Structures are given as C-alpha cells and as structure tokens.
C-alpha cells in the first residue's frame, strides 16, 4: 500500500496506542493526541505525524511529534535504544538532528520498537538537487548539504558523550566490512559470488585506519528536511556510528547515487570534495575514497539481500533483490581497486 493512503482502521489503532502510551508516560497531565497521519518519507520505517497536548504544571503544552516505528522487515535492522542515545547526545551540538522525546524499546506499546521525536519543519526530497528549484538555489543547497556532512564529522564525540554510546573502532574500514559481511551471511538465502569476490578485493585493499569521527551512515537529501532555502534537520540516524569520515563521502559520491548528490555541469564530485575540504580543514585521500565508494555499493547490495529475505518471509511488501545495476557497479568498482580497466 502506498504510504499516506492509510486506512482509517490503522489510523484509529495508532491513535489508541498513542493514547495508552502517553497515559503511561505522562500520568495526570491529561495528554490528548490529535492530527494523526502516516507520512511517506522513510523507506525503512513507518512514520506517523501527530500533535500532543498535555498539562505541564499550570501550562498547557502542545508538541508537534513524529513516531518512527520499525517495520516487521526491511532493508536494515538496527538498535533503537542506541539511536535514541545518539540523538540525545546531538542535542548539545550544532548538528540539526531531531530532538528525541520518548522510546518504546521493545515494541510493547506500538507493536515494534519505536522512537518519538519532535517534528521539525520542512520537506524531504531525494532529488531536490535536480528538481524544479532555480539552479542557484540548488547549488546553494548542495553546498549546505556538504557543510552539513562536514559538521557531522566535526562533532566532538567525547564532549557530547557519543564515545560512551557508540563503539570506538580501532580499524573503521575493517570493522565495517566485518559487520556488513556478517549481515550478508545471516540474511543470504543463496550464493552471491559477485559479493564474495568484491569482499575479497576490499579486504586486500583496506585503507589505513582513520581517526574515528561521527559518521551518519545514510547521508542523502532523502534524509534532510529543507524549509525554503535552509536545512532544518538531518534525519534517520539509525546507521550512525563512529568511523572514517570518508565512509559518508564514499556513500555520497558513489556512482549509484549521482542524481541525488551532484548537479550535472554545476556541482561535480570535485566541487563537493573541494568544498568539504575547505569547510572541515581536512583532506580526503583519493584511494581511501575509492575504497569507500566500492564499500557503498557493497553495503547497498547487502541491504538488498536483507530486503529480499524480508520480502520472501512476508515481513516486507517491497520486492527487493540485488539488482544488476548494483552488482555490476560493485564488481566494476572492486576490479578498479586493483587497477583493472575495461
């Protein structure tokens, strides 16, 4: 079913769940939930917007909120408690992340693990950089997105407490490769020699360990709220971890996502990298970036393998599968890591 086209029964059920949840969390404050609707943004979660009014002392408070509920199956399986803690740490930084308000860790109240966050203004559009806005506005947004990813990497992870929440990797690239290979082995229902070969190539050409920074893990316009000309929030922190900053840059500049991040003739990969280097005062090693580009394709392929499993087991209604485009990009990228051409 297309998101947004939500039957009244599902909305009513969510309304009842929210009412019970807030009666428990805000006892004696007469919480009232209004304006419940399902939003379309977010492929891995179900998003529900609503307003909550309650008494706080002598005041009546109204908050605009969003509930993000895990689906039964999807592309990624992550830990909601960690995401809640990451968002709480980010409140002390200049990164515009949503304010986390409540959590249902094990799905007791909403059927599956869920986060309730403050709803920020603005809209998400995967292809905003190549949409209808005038070119100067789009280029300005591209720069703002680049600044944003740089700001994420410049977060002081010690002072805001992230080092107490997220594992500090000794070798970020190796750790990520190990993690995604473990996801592959757990979810694969058949052989993928294409992925095995790419993994072998990636293991043979690991970049030198980088000093760990906060990595968003899924940085893209589809996760950025834009209001008018401004970025209002960076969403979807479920894959955030400490790692190599080139990981986010490799995700952003991978060949599979150029339409989301670049503007033909006006915002190239070199523009993006130069801007990033100026903004952060760091340099990006080309070899490392190429490795993370291939890793990005690997991660996409593994996510599709997980998505296929969810679909075949009836936990998701989206018929994901490792596509020819992703597997082909992965193999070609891995081959080039070894200096192969053609």
């Amino acid at each position, binding site marked *: 079913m297309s998101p947004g086209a939500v039957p009244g029964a599902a909305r009513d059920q969510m309304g009842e769940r929210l009412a019970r949840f807030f009666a428990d969390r805000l006892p004696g404050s007469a919480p009232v939930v209004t304006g419940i609707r399902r939003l379309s943004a977010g492929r891995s979660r179900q998003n529900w917007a609503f307003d909550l009014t309650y008494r706080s002392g002598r005041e009546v408070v109204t908050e605009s909120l969003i509930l993000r509920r895990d689906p039964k199956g999807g592309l990624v399986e992550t830990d909601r408690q960690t995401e809640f803690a990451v968002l709480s740490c980010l409140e002390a930084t200049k990164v515009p992340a949503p304010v986390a308000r409540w959590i249902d860790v094990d799905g007791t109240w909403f059927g599956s693990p869920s986060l309730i966050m403050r709803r920020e203004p603005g809209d998400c559009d995967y292809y905003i950089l190549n949409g209808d806005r005038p070119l100067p506005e789009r280029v300005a947004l591209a720069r703002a997105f680049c600044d944003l990813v740089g700001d994420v990497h410049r977060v002081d992870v010690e002072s805001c407490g992230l080092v107490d929440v997220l594992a500090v990797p000794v070798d970020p690239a190796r750790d990520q490769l190990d993690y995604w290979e473990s996801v592959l082995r757990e979810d694969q229902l058949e052989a993928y020699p294409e992925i095995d070969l790419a993994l072998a190539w990636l293991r*043979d050409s690991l970049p030198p360990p980088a000093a760990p920074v906060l990595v968003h893990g899924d940085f893209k316009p589809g996760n950025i709220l834009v209001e008018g000309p401004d970025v209002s929030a960076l969403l979807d922190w479920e894959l955030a971890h400490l790692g190599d900053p080139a990981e986010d840059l490799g995700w952003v500049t991978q060949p599979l996502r150029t339409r989301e991040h670049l503007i033909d003739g006006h915002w190239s990969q070199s523009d993006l990298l130069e801007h990033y280097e100026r903004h952060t005062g760091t340099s990006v090693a080309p070899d490392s970036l190429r490795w993370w580009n291939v890793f990005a394709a690997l991660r996409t392929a593994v996510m599709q393998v997980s998505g296929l499993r969810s679909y075949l087991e009836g936990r998701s209604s989206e018929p994901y599968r490792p596509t020819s485009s992703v597997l082909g990009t992965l193999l070609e990228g891995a081959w080039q890591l070894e200096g192969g051409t053609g």
Partner: protein
Amino acid sequence: MRPNSREEMALLVRELEEVAGSDEASEGISGDLRQCIRTFRRIERSLEQMVPYLRADNERLAGLLNQLRSGEGATFDADDLALLESMPPPLTGNWQEDVTEANTRNESLRDLLGRIIRAGGCSSREARADSRGVLMESIRSRPW
C-alpha cells in the same frame, strides 16, 4: 496441460488489471495490484529467455570453475568434481522441468564459486579478472 504456465500468468494479469482499474479499488490497493502486475509482466517477459540464459550461464560458470581447479589454492571435493564433470541433460521440452533443472545447476555452480572465492581459491589477479569477466557477463545477459 492447458492452461499452461504462460496462459495462467496472462489470466492472472488480466484479472488483476480489472480489479486495479475498477472504481471500487482504493488508491492504496490499486498501487499494490499494479506492483503485482509489474512483477508478473517481468516474469512473463523473461520466461522465454530463462532456459537459454541459465544454460549459457552454467556453461560459463563451469568453464571458470574448471580453470580455477587447475590453478593454485582452490580445493574441490568429490561432490564438487562430480558437479563439474556432469553434463547438463538434454532439454525435455517441458518448460517447468527444463527451468528447474537449469536453475538447480546454476545455484550449485554459483554456490561452489562463492565457496572457492571465500576459501581463497581465487586470489591471483588473473583468476579474479576471469571471475569478474564471467560474473559481469552473467549480470549483463540476465533476461530479468
């Protein structure tokens, strides 16, 4: 036997199109049905090409595995060798049987190649280049 698989698929698509296009179907249900129709059509389009594709892919994979077998580092057990030495049976003309046979062999060959790669039996530059060539051809020639 009639209706055969293709005819049944066409009947299903026709029924789904009727429901998806009716005034009674909500926007959400209609969207779901159209997704089903697209999936059926993709399967329908690839039906004719499935057996030739799988048989050609099996030949490529078996050729590659035989090459790796003569190289260093790859270990094949008796079952693996039996798989590589067995010839694909002649086509029966029964589409379902032919697809099932070719697909089972394809899965076994891909599984063996994956195991050889993971065990380090494809670590020379040449072996990897050959494997990459065969796998890219499999991807490029996929009918679906």
